[in-house]
C-alpha cells in the first residue's frame, strides 16, 4: 500500500470514527457486551445478586429434562403453524385495498390502526373482553350464539389459538402497509393483459401478484418468524401469564419468568442462548428454502 493511499484511509477513518463514536459506545455497553455476557452467564449459577458461579454445562443438561422448557418450545413451534395465515392474510387484505374499491383509503387507515397500539393495551383489552362474563361472550349471547361462549383464555384447548389470533391481528396493519408498498410497484398492465386473456381474480393473484411480490412475501415471512419468537413477551404477560397451566408459555416469556420469578438467572441465560440458536436455525432454513425456490 502506498503512503498516499494509507494517509487517505487514515484521513477518512478518523473523522468517521469520531462521528460513529457516540452510537458505537451506547451500542457496545447496552447491546453488544450484554450478548457476550449472556453467553458467559449461561454457564453459571446466579441468583441475581452477588457473583455468578461457574457450573459448566449444567444449565444445558437441566434444560433437556425440564418439561416447562419443552412445553414452551412446543408452543413456539405450534405458533409457527399459523404462519400461512400470518403471511398471506395481510397480502389478501392489501390486494383488496389495492384493487381500489370505494372506501379504500378509509379501510387502509382502519386496518393499520391496531399496529400503533401498545402490546400492553392489546393484551389488557383482550384479557378483559374475552373473560367468561365479559363483553365478547355477552355479545354472543345477545345475538343468540349462546353455545359459542367459551373461556377463551382460560381453557387450555383454546388459550394458545386465541393468543395467536390476537398476535396476528396486532401485526396485521404493518403487514398490509408493507404489501401495499410492494403492490404499488407492480406494473398494472400485467393485470390488464391477464384480463384480456380471460383470467379470473384467483388466477390473476396466483400468476401475477404472488410472483411479483415474492421478495416482500419472503421479507415479511422472516419478520414474522423472528417476531413470533422474540416479541411475544408483553402480550403473554398481559393476556395469560403463560397459563392456564403452561399452555401459553413461550420461550421469551419463560426466560423472563425463570430469571425474575424463579431467581435462576444463569439457567434463564442458557435458555436465551438456545432461543438464539432456534431463531437462527429457523431463519436460516427459511432463507435457504427461499433461495432454492428461486432457482
Amino acid at each position, binding site marked *: 500500500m502506498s503512503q498516499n493511499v494509507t494517509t487517505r484511509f487514515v484521513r477518512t477513518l478518523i473523522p468517521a470514527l469520531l462521528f460513529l463514536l*457516540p452510537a458505537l459506545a451506547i451500542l457496545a455497553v*447496552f*447491546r453488544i457486551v450484554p450478548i457476550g455476557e449472556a453467553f458467559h452467564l449461561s454457564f453459571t449459577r446466579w441468583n441475581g445478586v452477588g457473583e455468578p458461579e461457574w457450573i459448566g454445562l449444567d444449565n444445558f443438561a437441566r434444560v433437556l429434562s425440564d418439561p416447562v422448557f419443552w412445553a414452551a418450545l412446543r408452543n413456539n413451534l405450534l405458533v409457527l403453524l399459523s404462519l400461512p395465515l400470518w403471511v398471506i392474510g395481510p397480502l389478501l387484505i392489501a390486494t383488496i385495498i389495492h384493487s381500489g374499491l370505494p372506501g379504500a383509503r378509509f379501510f387502509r387507515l382502519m386496518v393499520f390502526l391496531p399496529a400503533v397500539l*401498545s402490546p400492553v*393495551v392489546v393484551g389488557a383489552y383482550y384479557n378483559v373482553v374475552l373473560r367468561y362474563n365479559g363483553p365478547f361472550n355477552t355479545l354472543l349471547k345477545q345475538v343468540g350464539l349462546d353455545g359459542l361462549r367459551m373461556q377463551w383464555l382460560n381453557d387450555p384447548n383454546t388459550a394458545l389459538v386465541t393468543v395467536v389470533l390476537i398476535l396476528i391481528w396486532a401485526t396485521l396493519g404493518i403487514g398490509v*402497509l408493507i404489501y401495499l408498498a410492494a403492490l404499488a410497484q407492480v406494473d398494472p398492465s400485467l393485470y390488464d393483459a391477464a384480463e384480456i386473456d380471460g383470467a379470473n381474480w384467483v388466477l390473476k393473484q396466483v400468476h401475477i401478484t404472488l410472483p411479483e411480490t415474492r421478495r416482500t412475501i419472503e421479507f415479511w415471512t422472516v419478520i414474522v418468524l423472528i417476531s413470533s419468537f422474540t416479541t411475544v413477551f408483553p402480550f403473554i404477560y398481559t393476556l395469560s401469564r403463560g397459563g392456564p397451566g403452561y399452555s401459553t408459555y413461550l420461550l421469551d416469556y419463560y426466560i423472563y419468568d425463570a430469571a425474575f420469578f424463579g431467581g435462576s438467572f444463569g439457567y434463564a441465560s442458557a435458555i436465551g442462548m438456545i432461543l438464539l440458536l432456534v431463531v437462527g436455525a429457523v431463519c436460516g432454513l427459511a432463507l435457504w428454502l427461499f433461495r432454492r425456490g428461486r432457482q
Partner: protein
Amino acid sequence: MSATTTRKLVRWTPSWLLLGLLTLLSLAPFAFVTLTAFKTAKNYAKDPIGLPNPPTLEFLERALTTGNMLTYLGNSLLVVGCAVLLLALTASMAGYALAVIRFRGSALMLLGIVCLLAVPAAVVMIPLYRTVGQLGLMNSHLGLILTYTALQLPFSIYLMTSFLNGLPPEIIEAGRIDGAGHLQTFRHIILPLSAPALATMSTLNFLWLFNELLFGLLLMQDDAKRTLPVGLASLQGQHTTPVPLLAAGLLLSLIPVLFVFLVAQRELARGLTVGAVK
C-alpha cells in the same frame, strides 16, 4: 341504477364485509375503553357492552390520582422524549460517517449493526439488568434512556444510512466546495437535508419506545419511576382492579398514541416500508 353498477356493488360486497369486520375490530378497543371508563363497577358487571348508565367520572379521577397515571405518563414522555432526541443525534452522526464520509469496512459495519436487530430482547435482558445495576443506573431515568437508545439504534442507523445513500452526491459536494469541515457539512447541509428522514425515524422510535414493556419493567422497579406500560400492566395484574378503572387507565394511555397516529400517518407508512420492497 344501471346493470354494471349493480354488478360492481355485488362484486365488492364480500370485500366490504371483510374490511368492515376488520374496521369494527380496530375501533372496538377505543369504543370499549371509552364507554367502560365512564361506567360504575356495578353497571359494568350488569351490562359490559352497553352505554354507561349512569355515567360517572369516579374511575377517571381515580386513575389520575391514586392510580398515578399522570406520573407514569410524565415518566414515559420524559424517558421516551430524551431517547428519541438522543437517537436523532447519534443515528444521524453515524449515518453521516457510514454514508457520506465512508471508509473501507463501512458497509461491513452497517451489516453488523443491522444484524443486532435479530437478537431477541429476552437474550440481552439479564446481562443488561446486571450492567445497569453495576453502573448504578437502576431506577434512574438515564439508565432507561440509554437502554432505549441502544434498542432503537440499529434500526435508526439503518434508516439514516439508506436515506443519505439515496441523496444525490452533488448536493453534498456543492456544500463542501468552500472548504467546510465535516462538522460544518454535517450541521449545515446534512441535518437540514435529513429533516424528512429524521421525522419518520423519530415518529417510529417514539411509538415503539412509548409502547415498550420489558425493559421498563426490569429497570424501573420503583413505583414513582414507572413508565406508562409498566404502570398499566401492574394495574391489570391485580385481580382486585375494577374493570372501569383499568379502562380509564387504558383510555388515558391511548390519547398520545392516537394523536401521533392522526398527525404522522404518512411518516409511519414511509418508515415501516423502508427495505421492504426488493
